[in-house]
């Protein structure tokens, strides 16, 4: 009985904390389905006369479908790039080669450098490659991320060496070991890569702002800033836009959250 009450209390506490965490999301959605001023006092807890026409306004008042398509294309490139490049890098780091510790240290130290500090060389390299104002250029800096390399490395290290040795004895090349043995056993790491890469790419603002030259190449965060410059008041349409920008990344997270959490914690209890 005491244990049951304890579980009940724990769940009640978790529900209460979750509710507090979800209040900002609720407030954004509530404002999106009404035209209430967020500074109105006293604030209304429940939406009054809710409707979805603010979402229709967002869809038509700015080229939302174009921004959405741009964001989807760039995010798809980033996700594909991350899964492929990070898996290769992660596998390499599980092998023994001269200077491995140095490479690991270099990667770890590079994580300390903020992207803003490297944005000028990144821009110059992208310009030299002739990729300014292109989808590949938009995706380029995020095609491989160090955190995700380590996620793959941890997942690959968790696979028994005997399995890889057996595959090698059977004549599989290194590429096929990654593709046929390691990747199917690292679904959690793949999901983590997909989610993180998608969210980082989806929310990227500074890089697209710098390298896009035409409004037709802009992504959703830039569209949101542009929309904000038109709609300076706190209208429901602005919040509807925010909901429409947020929805895909929340959707991807919800779809893969189980594998995501497993991917982040795999290797955490090793040894």
């Amino acid at each position, binding site marked *: 009985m005491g244990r049951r009450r304890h579980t009940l209390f724990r769940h009640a506490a978790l529900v209460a904390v979750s509710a507090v965490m979800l209040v900002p999301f609720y407030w954004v959605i509530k404002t999106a389905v009404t035209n209430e001023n967020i500074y109105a006092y006293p604030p209304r807890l429940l939406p009054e006369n809710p*409707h979805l*026409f603010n979402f*229709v*306004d967002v869809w*038509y*008042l700015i080229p939302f479908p174009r921004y959405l398509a741009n964001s989807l294309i760039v995010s798809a490139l980033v996700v594909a790039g991350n899964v492929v490049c990070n898996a290769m890098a992660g596998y390499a780091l599980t092998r023994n080669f001269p200077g491995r510790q140095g490479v690991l240290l270099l990667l770890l130290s590079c994580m300390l450098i903020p992207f803003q500090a490297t944005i000028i060389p990144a821009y110059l390299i992208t310009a030299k490659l002739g990729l300014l104002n292109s989808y590949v250029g938009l995706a380029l800096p995020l095609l491989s991320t160090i955190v995700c390399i380590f996620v793959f490395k941890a997942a690959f290290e968790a696979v028994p060496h005997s399995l890889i040795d057996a595959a090698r004895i059977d004549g599989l090349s290194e590429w096929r070991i990654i593709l046929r043995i390691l990747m199917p056993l690292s679904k959690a790491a793949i999901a983590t890569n997909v989610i993180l890469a998608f969210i980082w790419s989806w929310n990227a603002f500074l890089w697209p702002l710098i390298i896009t030259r035409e409004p037709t190449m802009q992504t959703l965060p830039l569209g949101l800033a542009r929309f904000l410059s*038109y*709609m300076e008041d706190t209208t429901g349409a602005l919040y509807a836009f925010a909901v429409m920008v947020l929805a895909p990344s929340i959707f991807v997270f919800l*779809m893969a959250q189980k594998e995501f959490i497993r991917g982040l914690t795999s290797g955490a209890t090793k040894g």
Partner: protein
Amino acid sequence: MTLPDWARSRWVIVPLAMAIAVAGWNGYVALNDGGLVEGRVVDGAGRPVSGATVILLERNFVMHNERQRTRADAAGRFRFTGNDNHSLQLEAESAPLGRSERRVVRLWFRAQNVTLAEPLQFAGRLP
């Protein structure tokens, strides 16, 4: 008959359901985007106002601008064609009755065919 494992994955079912919903919605839009806006104009007593001028205003970004005018027939009915906006306002004018209230008409998509459920109503009554 059982479906293979991959077909029962949420990564297949959810995107497929979304694709079907989007296709269905687009089909509905394609069948209903003729740009027709229809309705009636009545006086304060609910009698049709023939010959009333009905003005259609459409939203650009922050304002509504006049786009079309038409006249109500003997039964007070009016009809606009070629609307390609999603947020409209309608207003009626008549020499003896002045102006009606301005009606906001929100559509779910551009050029949606719509018939006003409630007529445009003048405050005054015809003699």
